Structure formats: C-alpha cells, structure tokens
C-alpha cells in the first residue's frame, strides 16, 4: 500500500529496512524532524554521543568489530564538520559508514544561513560518495544505494545531506524494495588467466611471502579462513599490515608478525629477500614499504585488491588481480587443488635466522614499568576472553600491535591510514555496543585519550563496561621519539603537561579508576579491571622515555632497521626529514 510519509519518516523506515539496529548521533536544529521521527521508535537504538567526532569513530568501531555498516546522524554546520575527522578516518581505513547530516532548508542553501556549511563540498574527498537530497521522493532509493556503496567494493563512508524542508515534506512511500540504480558494480573476481598465472607464480616461488592487509578483514570471515588455507597449502610465511592483524593467527609457526616501520625484523627482511610477494588486500603504504627504491628489490609481486586505484599506485606489480579477497583466494585455492609448491626448507631456515634477532626484545627496568611489559601482561591476562582491542595513536598503538596478539578478525580496531588520536575510546564504545558480551579495551596514550575524553559520559549513560588502559608516559611519546631520533632531542611541545588525575576523572564520570604505579601492582591492577562489572580507566604509569623499536627510520630501507641497543645518531638529513 502506498501512503504519504514525511522525509524524516521515510528515512527511519529505510534505515530499519536496511537492518540498522544502532544509530550514533547528536541532535540539533537541522535534524529535529528526524529526531522527532525517532522518538519512541523502539526499532532503532539511538546512542547519544558527546561530540560528533565520537559518533563517527563509535560507528567505525561498531562496523569494524561486527562487519555491519555503522550509521551516524548529526546536525548541519558544526555537527557535520565535527564528524568530518571520523569520516576521513573511515575513508582511509575502508570502513563502511552511512552518515546522515541535516542541512538548512533548500531555499536557504548558499545564503550563509545559521549553521549552514557546505557539507557535500567539505566531505567530497573523504567520502566514497555523497548526496544532497532535493526531494523526499528520492530518499528511499538514495538510502538503498548509499548502503550498497558503503558496504560493497572497497567499503567506505557515504554521506547523505538532507535539508530540513526535505525531512518535513512528504512523498509517497510503500514497503516495496527501493528501485536500485544499477550503476555501481565493482569487479569481484579475477579472470581465469590471472588466477592461472598466480597459481603458477606461487607454485614456482622458492621464497614466497603472503603480505596481507585490512582488505582481508573487510572481505569477511571467509577471507580469513581462505587465507589460512592458502598458507597451509603453500607453507608460505605470513606478515600483515597494522590494519590486517587478526586475519592470521599470531601463534602460528609461519607468522612473521607485523611488517613496516615498527614491524618485526623477520617480517621486513622476509619482504626484502622474498622472490615472490603475494599482497592480499593491502596497499603498499609508505609506512610499510620504507624507501621505495629499496623495497623488495628481487621479488615478483602479485597484488589482489578490490580497488583498481590501489594497484601500481606506489609499487609496480607483475600481476594485478582486481577482486574481492575471499573470491580471489577461493579461485586460487580451487585451481591449486593438491598441487605441491617448492621446497621452502632453505627459505624458512633464513626466516628462522632473522627471528633469532629477537627484534621485539626490550630491557626491563627496576625503576619503572616498561610499556611493552604492560601490554604483554594485559595480553596474557585477557587472552582467554578473546577481547576486542582498540587503540589511540602513538607509541602505545605500536606496542599494542607488537605485543598484543590476535587470532581472529574483527578484534583489532585502530586508526591506521589517518592515524587519528582520539579514535580509540569512541571506537571501543561502538564495539561494545556491537559485542555486548565481549571484553573491550582501549589501549590508550595519555595525550590521545584527552582528544575524545568526553565520551566517558556516553559509556556511563548506556552502561557499557568499556575499559581504557592508559600507558601513561607523560609524553606525546611518538612525537618525543621522533624528536629524539631526528631533531637531537629538542622536545618542542611534546611534553604532556598538566595531565588530569585520570583516576579522579574516571570517578567524576561514574567510572572506576585504578592507578598502577609499579610492576608489583601490574597484574593485580589488570585483574581488578577485568573483574569490575562496569567501565574502568586504568592509569598505568610507565617508563617515560622508552622508544618504540624496532624501527625503520623514514627514508630508510627495510634492511636498515634500528633495534633496541643500537646507537642512534639523533640527526637526519633533510631528504629523510621531508618524508612523512
């Protein structure tokens, strides 16, 4: 039956039809009609954040940990601009989001009206696609297409800007599925020739590496299972980008650990010495490749990616296969059958030798808790619970990637591409909503946690037992480290002065606060955090000036890693300084 409904109503019905359960949002003038349509509607759960950036990151955490798209609802002007950081973050890390923004009424657009911002213009280059809705009759089809675009191909954020008059005006509405425009159809499978060539190259390789990324996670649990199967069939060692952690189990003998700037020695050396690199859902990011002209000089490269624009962007490859990781892996495995690859004994012996460097070694201290140790203990004491871990950005993020270990997908939420401080707490909140029975921990830094600290209130309001574990080194540690290594320890503005008392802050928000001051309190403090049925901040005081190693300095090759105990010059030439 067709009936007239308001734009706001059509929006709500369409979201319900898409299977949306949770909306992260914040009200304001330009979305009042939508908030009114939501009032009393039990089908959608609205989570009121404390800042719109929090809404976008929470939606990211929800999406990344559940595999479902995250939905954001914010008002025009400042509501939309506040959400932009989270949208840009989702764009860089390929996280499916649908963002609904209110806009001033159509007639006022362009007049510098109260709370007007050119949201479509501002978000143009940090969304996969965006819309300005001109008539409520377009809404159902636009929302349907928005979800399709956000979740298929390379996932990403899609923004729908809805002027206030369009929310109020009515249009015919019925329950029939929206008429979908057939214009977005990304390629998902490799061609028979490509697959045959890939199988041939893998079968011939004497020193292969599987280099995997966030695409494997985005492709879904099946891609993870198929990756493991391909590894089993070929015996190839596996490394992963920051975004791909969890796709391959960290306790597997052929796991090399993370690669790149703070990756393990064995992962980077294996990439450097490989004769074949099979890149699966990763994109040869500058944090991974180091100096490009020295990157994997002797290898052939296969690149499996759903985004054609990721191919040959920075590193030319021999065999590109455009397609979905799961589908292409399936194609490769089907053709592989029970083929036997080359004997990899010699290759694995070399890998073993590199492992012998023990690149994640760090010295213990009797004066302070080493941050690496804190992460190790956190891992040991929580691993049986299969927790979801989010992070902020900085040294603690890298230590979490290095010393926390993952065994399955969707357990690791971190801001990789954009490197957004303030991501971790809202992301943990989103993840907790999507996984109510899981232990969710934000491994945080003392500076980053302050960037979205207001979201403590959100967790309190919805009784989310999120844990925040702060590695408090009283520094913007990562900045301090770069200043130490490249600017002769001129610590310009990187000291975390005037830190709040995090325990009292926790208590002020109705959280539990725990302070860990020395190693003897470490395990007990962590255990207390785990056992507490509610949100907890742990302020874990760690050694203040530890550096994050191993490290490939910017502008250096994979073979030029700095390990603990290496002397570091403290200066760098301008060419290297100019690199990000």
């Amino acid at each position: 039956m067709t009936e007239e409904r308001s734009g706001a109503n059509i929006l709500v019905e369409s979201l319900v039809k898409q299977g949306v359960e949770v909306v992260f949002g914040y009200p304001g003038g330009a979305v009042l009609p939508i908030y009114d349509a939501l009032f009393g509607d039990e089908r959608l759960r609205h989570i009121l954040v404390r800042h719109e950036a929090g809404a976008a990151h929470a939606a990211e955490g929800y999406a990344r940990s559940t595999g479902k798209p995250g939905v954001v609802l914010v008002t025009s002007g400042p509501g939309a601009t506040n959400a932009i950081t989270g949208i840009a973050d989702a764009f860089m890390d390929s996280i499916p989001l649908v963002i609904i923004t209110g806009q001033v009424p159509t007639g006022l657009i362009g007049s510098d009206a109260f709370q007007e911002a050119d949201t479509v213009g501002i978000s143009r280059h940090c969304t996969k696609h965006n819309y300005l809705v001109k008539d409520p009759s377009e809404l159902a089809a636009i929302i349907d297409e928005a979800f399709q675009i956000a979740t298929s191909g390379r996932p990403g954020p899609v923004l729908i800007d809805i002027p206030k008059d369009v929310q109020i005006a009515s249009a015919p509405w019925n329950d029939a599925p929206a008429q979908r425009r057939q214009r977005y159809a990304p390629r998902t499978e490799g061609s028979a020739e490509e697959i045959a060539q890939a199988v041939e190259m893998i079968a011939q390789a004497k020193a292969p590496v599987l280099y995997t990324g966030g695409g494997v996670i985005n492709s879904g649990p099946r891609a993870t299972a198929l990756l493991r199967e391909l590894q089993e069939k070929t015996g190839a060692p596996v490394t992963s980008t920051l975004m791909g952690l969890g796709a391959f189990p960290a306790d597997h003998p052929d796991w090399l650990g993370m690669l790149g700037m703070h990756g393990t020695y064995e992962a980077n050396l294996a990439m450097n010495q490989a004769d074949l690199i099979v890149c699966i859902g990763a994109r040869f990011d500058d944090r991974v490749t180091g100096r490009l002209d020295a990157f994997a000089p002797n290898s052939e490269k296969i690149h499996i990616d759903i985004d054609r624009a990721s191919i040959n962007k920075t590193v030319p490859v021999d065999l590109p296969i455009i397609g979905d990781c799961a589908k292409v892996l399936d194609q490769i495995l089907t053709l592989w059958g029970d083929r036997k690859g080359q004997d990899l004994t010699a290759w694995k012996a070399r890998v073993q030798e590199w492992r012998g460097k023990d690149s994640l070694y760090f010295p213990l201290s009797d004066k302070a808790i080493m941050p690496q140790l804190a992460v190790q203990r956190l891992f040991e004491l929580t691993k049986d619970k299969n927790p979801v871990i989010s992070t902020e950005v900085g040294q603690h993020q890298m230590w979490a990637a290095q010393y926390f270990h993952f065994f399955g997908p969707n357990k690791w939420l971190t801001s990789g591409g954009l490197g957004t401080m303030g991501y971790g707490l809202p992301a943990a909140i989103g993840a907790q909503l999507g996984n109510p029975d899981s232990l969710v921990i934000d491994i945080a830094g003392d500076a980053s946690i302050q960037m979205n600290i207001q979201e403590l209130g959100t967790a309190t309001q919805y009784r989310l037992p999120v844990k925040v574990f702060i590695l408090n080194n009283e520094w913007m540690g990562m900045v301090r480290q770069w200043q130490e290594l490249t600017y002769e320890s001129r610590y310009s503005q990187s000291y975390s002065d005037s830190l709040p008392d995090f325990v009292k802050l926790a208590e002020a928000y109705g959280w539990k606060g725990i302070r860990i001051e020395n190693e003897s309190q470490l395990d007990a403090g962590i255990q207390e955090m785990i056992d507490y049925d509610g949100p907890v901040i742990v302020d874990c005081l760690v050694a203040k000036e530890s550096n994050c190693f191993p490290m490939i300095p910017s502008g250096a090759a994979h073979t030029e890693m700095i390990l603990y105990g290496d002397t570091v010059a403290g200066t760098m030439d301008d060419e290297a300084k100019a690199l990000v």
Partner: protein
Amino acid sequence: MMHIKQEAEERHVLTITVDNEAGILAKIAGLFTARGYNIDSLTVADITENHAVSRITIVTHGPPSQIDQIHAQLERLVPVHKVVDLTEVGPYVQRELALIKVTGVGEKRVEALRIAGVFRARPVDTTTGSFIFELTGAPDKIDSFVALMRDLGLVEVGRTGIVAMIRGQHEA
C-alpha cells in the same frame, strides 16, 4: 640541502562519461586538485536527450604512472560510467574553438585578414578598427595563429579547451 625533483611527463586526453548530477564537476575537478594532478583543459556538456549523461574531456599531463592513477581514481567515482584515455587507445581527433580579437588599421589589418584566410579563421565581428576571428582546429593550430596575431594587434583570446573522439567506426 634538499631540492624538489621533477619527473618526465606526458600529455594525455581523457574522455569521461558521467551521470549529470549536482556536484559532479566539482567532484572531478576536485579529485585533480586533491591528488595533485594537472588539468590543462576541461570541457563538459550533457550529451543525451534527457540531460542525464554528460561527457567531459580533460587534457592532463604527468608522469605515466600518474596518468594511470588518474584513470583509476576517476573510475572509482560512483557517477562515472566510463573513462577513455584517447592518447592510449588512439588515434583520435581533437578540436578546439577560439575567439581572437585583433585591432589595427592599414597594413597590419590586411595582413591579419590574409593570415586568417590561410588558417580558415572566420571573422565573426568586424569594425573599422578590429576583427573577432573564430577558429576551430587542433590546439597547436590555434597556438600558431595566436602567435602570429601577437604582432598584428592581438587584444584578447578566448578558447574552449578541446573535445576529442576516437577515429573510426566504433565508440571508444
């Protein structure tokens, strides 16, 4: 000391068929600025009866790897149906229209008109002291004509940027 390095560059002509929706031009032009690509010229007009589809011709230059990226990045945009790199798939014809205003009297005026004849430029406005010539052709032909007019009283030039199409029977 550090200096910015330059790479060898090529000129490419791309045609892009797109949904004719609000903001599409900003999206495409913005993609070029956001990613540091060059636009030498850009033309756009809708090409279907119902105004639903537009065709954009962009002339760009850059290192070959960047041209390939431009192609891929354009294809990634949802409203983009098709991108053809005419320089890759060639041969193609390219045409541009220019209006050129020249003032002068006596010898110079006669010479301007004579050269216009050689180039098949058509006077579309005439006063006793000036001409506006209309000239259609490949960009280098227009370049040469404009260069010759410089000494003969050139006042103003307006150019459309090129439209281009693959030669032969088939659609590119």
